[in-house]
């Protein structure tokens, strides 16, 4: 009986909720001709349907719980005049709009959609083009940003904005977005417990993903390709990066992944392909690198110093010009049970583990660190000879840096 009453109460609540909101329509021949007008007149929990057409509007301020749904790709053209949609209320949903021509300013960060101090927002299926900032979340929690397409036309770093920016947010899900040609694809600052998954962030001017001072965040199944400087993660703790692909980040200051002051994190099952530097590590401690593939990179892992207690286990290092590079003789990191395509040892007892340890740091990588122009001598016979003599008796490279159990066959990670 008690259960039944609960059930009834919930049913009534649900029914009242659905009958609570009214539907409003916006189109050329509808009672509401503009979205601004409809938003003003709507009561909380109403649903606004925006029909096909182009609407020249900006500064649409949403201060009550509304659902705005675009039907047949309606376009909101901001005519470069400023911000387009600002949300300052909880429980707002925006779905299926195309927003173009966000104003560019050097003093204000105009965004296509900005969410300010709100909860439970849902932004999905939006198409943003010719923008300054795309989606800007500010001190907002418990929301979702799903399946949006953001295509910018950034040329200069100083006159362009970020695709999705989170500032002081908590518990937000960013999933399935496509971001191209903006400054930073996804940018996080002071944002915790964020889940970023299945996004594709490519061809951005600076970073595909960039975050600072953001802890306990998770990154899964993302693709970061062809970005100006790859992905940069800085000053954060307890990060999980899994199943991401970092590829073709080429250039002198370009990395697949740049880690600076990252502690207590997990980097697993990622793939790093054809980057100038696969992972550039600086001042990072207690990070576990397992089951990653490093393929055809210039440098698979570049360790810059102040890195302690990191563990590299069960990774595949395939055809990189340099596997690991150090700029000092001190090593406090552990390399164990990886596959190295450059390994030349043997396995007499047939247990799949090489009998002689592998030294991933070559003398030549030390020389290139000192005099970068020497890179032109890569793979020369003379270099092979000096590398060999260094391998026999390490003088310049850390002598305790070795993989005691190098595998003979590449690992298939699953």
């Amino acid at each position, binding site marked *: 009986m008690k259960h039944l009453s609960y059930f009834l109460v919930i049913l009534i609540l649900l029914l009242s909720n659905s009958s609570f909101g009214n539907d409003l329509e916006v189109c050329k021949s509808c009672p509401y001709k503009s979205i601004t007008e409809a938003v003003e007149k709507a009561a909380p929990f109403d649903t606004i349907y925006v029909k096909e057409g182009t609407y020249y509007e900006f500064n649409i301020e949403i201060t009550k719980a509304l659902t705005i749904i675009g039907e047949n790709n309606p376009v909101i053209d901001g005519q470069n005049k400023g911000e387009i949609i600002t949300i300052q209320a909880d429980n707002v949903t925006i779905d299926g709009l195309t927003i173009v021509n966000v104003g560019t300013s050097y003093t204000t960060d105009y965004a296509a959609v900005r969410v300010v101090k709100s909860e439970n927002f849902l932004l999905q299926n939006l198409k943003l083009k010719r923008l300054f900032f795309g989606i800007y979340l500010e001190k907002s929690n418990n929301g979702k940003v799903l399946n949006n397409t953001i295509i910018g036309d950034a040329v200069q770093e100083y006159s362009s904005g970020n695709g999705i920016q989170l500032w002081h947010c908590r518990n937000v899900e960013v999933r399935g977005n496509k971001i191209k040609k903006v400054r930073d694809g996804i940018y996080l600052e002071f944002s915790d417990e964020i889940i970023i998954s299945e996004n594709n962030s490519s061809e951005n001017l600076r970073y595909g993903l960039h975050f600072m001072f953001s802890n306990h965040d998770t990154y899964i199944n993302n693709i970061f390709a062809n970005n100006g400087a790859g992905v940069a993660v800085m000053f954060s703790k307890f990060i999980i990066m899994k199943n991401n692909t970092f590829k073709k980040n080429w250039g002198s200051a370009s990395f697949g992944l740049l880690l600076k002051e990252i502690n207590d994190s997990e980097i697993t099952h990622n793939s790093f392909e054809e980057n100038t530097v696969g992972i550039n590590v600086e001042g990072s401690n207690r990070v576990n690198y397992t089951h990653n593939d490093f393929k055809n990179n210039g440098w698979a892992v570049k360790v810059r110093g102040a890195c302690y207690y990191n563990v590299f286990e069960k990774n595949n290092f395939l055809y990189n010009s340099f596997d690991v590079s150090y700029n000092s003789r001190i090593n406090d990191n552990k390399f164990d049970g990886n596959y190295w395509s450059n390994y030349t040892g043997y396995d007499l007892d047939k247990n799949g583990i090489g009998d002689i340890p592998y030294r991933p740091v070559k003398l030549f990588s030390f020389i290139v660190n000192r005099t*970068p122009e020497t890179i032109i001598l890569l*793979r020369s016979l003379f270099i092979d000879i000096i590398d060999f003599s260094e391998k026999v008796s390490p003088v310049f490279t850390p002598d305790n840096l070795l993989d005691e159990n190098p595998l003979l066959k590449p690992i298939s990670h699953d």
Partner: protein
Amino acid sequence: MLKILKYSFFDLMRSRWSYVYFLFYLLLGVVLLFLNNDLSKAVITLMNVIIILVPLIGTIFGVMYYYSSREFTELLLAQPVKRSSIFLGQYFGVALSLSLSLIIGLGLPFVFYGIFKSAAIWDFSLLLITGTFLTLIFTALAFIIALANENKIKGFGYAILLWLFMAVIYDGLFLMSLIYFENYPLDKFSLIATMFNPIDLSRVLILLKLDISALLGYTGAVFQKFFGTSLGLIISTGMLALWVAIPIGIIYRMVKRKDF
């Protein structure tokens, strides 16, 4: 000239050495592909072979052929044939038969492996092209050495020395000068120094395909321009062609003036 070329070519094609050379490459290709089972790794190993062994064999073979066919050359010189066509004919005979051994020897196993369907076809053809260039260059250099030295032992000595210098010593000196002058801007210097050694030049040409990601790691604008655009490819190929043309020109001049 064509007749002499044809004669030298078929003479060499019948000789044991061509077969040994051909079989060596065939074996190398088969072992690399079917024991390794990985195309990327095979191409890297192949590059080492091509930039080290091809010049060595070209030099030794060129010198050897010149000395061993000396009597026949003298016989030809008594005939009303142009001098340049005798020697150039011989040179091209040697160089072509060596190149053919290389291309067929390495090509066959790769064709059976299915290179035409693989994405590595361009890397592979680049390898064969640089290999052919190196054969042409080093055979010509060998002919120059042999023409300049009547003494066989001396000729062989110089030929080995030439190879050792180009393959190893040059890079050692190069590296030392780069480290010694590291406080100066060195991009132009290092690119130009590469141009003066055909082995380095071919190495860089192949690196442009294999290790482009590492090469782009350096900040210098000259390097960026050279490696980042097709400029590097064009200049390197042009320089290799020049490296063939100049020694042939020298042979041409030498045989005109030489007193037999």
